[in-house]
């Protein structure tokens, strides 16, 4: 569920634009004003504000924000203003430009969006970067990672409830067999994890547990330093419970020496209108600390205020 709160009587886009314009004028910028407006508007409303601003002042709001804001706050606001598909496209492109085997942003995006949402991302990617998402993924990755990530971002999984129970069982056995052989990059593992539907995979993981006495991720943990295994485990966890996976991403981002603002911004801006409420609940259960308290301790200034607003905990 969304954690964004929109005021009951919302100012018109024109009024919002006027306030934003005021916030940019004069010495410095009134960040508080920007947050109080933008963090409390829905996607449709934000789009209207962008359009109105361009009409009223002949400037792209994004460019103005780029000029006026800085660093983590700026990045979060710019991402927040974009439509979700474009946002994900920008995040995917950023992840690819500095890709390394321990970068799991692509997996996170590909595995927590619906099949149709992923296609919207691919469409937005082509429009913005004049290349397909999969061609860039292919070029920036290699070896087993390429074999895993290209199908992962290209998949269009069936999203219905139908499952072939005996097939799920047999594929649980196949997964086990390849894992035993330590053939983690084997075609069969990749085929099953990147093409099968979510329901089918849930059944498969269940069968794996029943048949072999422990969850598949236990067997995939044989080398905790192996990035490829980490990637496979991430895929499994996203199928089983995306919110729990995302909670862990946030937790690790906060607990890291210094903070991983990149991951924090990514998860919060992309999930604030989707399932942030559920993620907050999991965070509290898991850490006995509320997410807003953790963020207050770990982040500062306008960036902190913006994130708090997005997770629905501003003053």
């Amino acid at each position, binding site marked *: 569920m969304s954690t964004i709160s929109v005021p009951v009587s919302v100012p018109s886009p024109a009024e919002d634009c006027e306030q934003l314009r005021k916030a940019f004028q004069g010495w410095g910028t009134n960040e508080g004003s920007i947050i109080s407006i933008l963090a409390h508007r829905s996607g449709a409303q934000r789009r209207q504000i962008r359009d109105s601003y361009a009409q009223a002042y002949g400037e792209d709001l994004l460019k103005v924000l780029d000029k006026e804001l800085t660093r983590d706050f700026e990045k979060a606001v710019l991402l927040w203003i974009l439509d979700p598909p474009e946002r994900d496209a920008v995040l995917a492109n950023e992840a690819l430009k500095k890709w390394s085997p321990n970068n799991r942003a692509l997996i996170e995006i590909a595995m927590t969006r619906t099949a149709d949402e992923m296609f919207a991302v691919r469409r937005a990617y082509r429009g913005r970067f004049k*290349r397909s998402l999969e061609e860039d993924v292919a070029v920036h990755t290699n070896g087993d990672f*390429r074999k895993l990530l290209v199908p992962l971002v*290209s998949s*269009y999984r*069936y999203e219905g409830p139908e499952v072939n129970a005996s097939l799920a069982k047999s594929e649980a056995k196949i997964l086990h067999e390849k894992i035993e052989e330590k053939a983690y990059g084997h075609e069969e593992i990749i085929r099953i994890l990147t093409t099968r539907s979510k329901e089918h995979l849930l059944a498969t993981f269940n069968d794996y547990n029943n048949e072999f006495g422990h969850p598949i991720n236990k067997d995939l943990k044989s080398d905790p330093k192996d990035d490829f295994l980490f990637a496979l485990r991430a895929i499994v966890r996203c199928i089983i419970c995306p919110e729990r996976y995302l909670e862990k991403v946030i937790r690790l981002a906060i607990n890291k020496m210094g903070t991983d603002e990149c991951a924090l911004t990514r998860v919060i801006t992309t999930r604030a209108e989707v399932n942030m409420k559920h993620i907050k609940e999991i965070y509290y259960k898991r850490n006995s600390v509320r997410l807003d308290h953790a963020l207050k301790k770990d982040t500062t200034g306008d960036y902190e205020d913006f994130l708090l607003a997005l997770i629905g905990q501003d003053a």
Partner: protein
Amino acid sequence: MGQGLGGLGVDEEALVSALGKWRHQPEKRAQLRKSFAGFFTADGGFERFEDDYIHYLKIEFARFKNIMVLWAMHPWERDARWANDVLHKAHPFDIIVEIACTRSSEELLGARIAYHALFHRSLEEDVAYHVRENFSNLLVGLVSAYRYEGDSINEEMAKSEAKTLGTAIKSAGVRNLVENGEVIRILTTRSKPHLRVTFKYYREMYGKSIEEDLGDELCLQETVQCLDSPPKYFSKVMDETLKDGADKNTKDALTRVIVSRADVDMEEIKAAYHEQYGAQLEDVIAMKTLGNYRDALLSLVGQ
């Protein structure tokens, strides 16, 4: 009666008039059965219809029905059904390459949407599961693509990828080419305009078209042909389907190609056919097909 058969489809009118005129004349029909010895066998006290021939008639009579049903169908559903048939009835995989490479990005997405609705699985999961040969990764990549369709091309990249392809072809010995990661990457992810420029550079660098150099690996050769020029590819398919002695699957291509391209690039296909084979496609179709089937084909091919 011989006039009513012997091509693709059947001449319904001729057959009706031929057999109809023998009402109340069973001895005339018995004579017919005796004279078509290949189709009827003497068995006990009567001439039995050969099973093979009944089967043949069933197929030929159905051509008109099939083309009508397919023509009425949404293009997405057509492609999804053809792909599913290939995977479950062991038709040749070239139909998958054809669909994946000659449809636009949105049409291919449409086929995947229809596939979900019809078969409750994704197209790529079925391709990955049912295609066990070494070109499985290539096919999965081709059906999963959502290629950029704009004109923006990086010439340097195209040149360098032409070289990558050339090196792969020269060194691999065409057998393993279809599993080569770089070959798969380039052919399954790059935009079609980019690939056409890449193929052009290939010809400049190596003196031969990449199609020729891929002669032994039919799957890759067809991929390249479909991506480079669908009209040329389809005109070749037309030539094969209209030749004498074509097998069942090849004959079925006639309906499939005409129905799927009538609204897309039929004019270009006719032009390519004329250039390659020196004949008008409509004329050859008119010669080799019969009855309502022929009429349906010709109306879709256009004058």
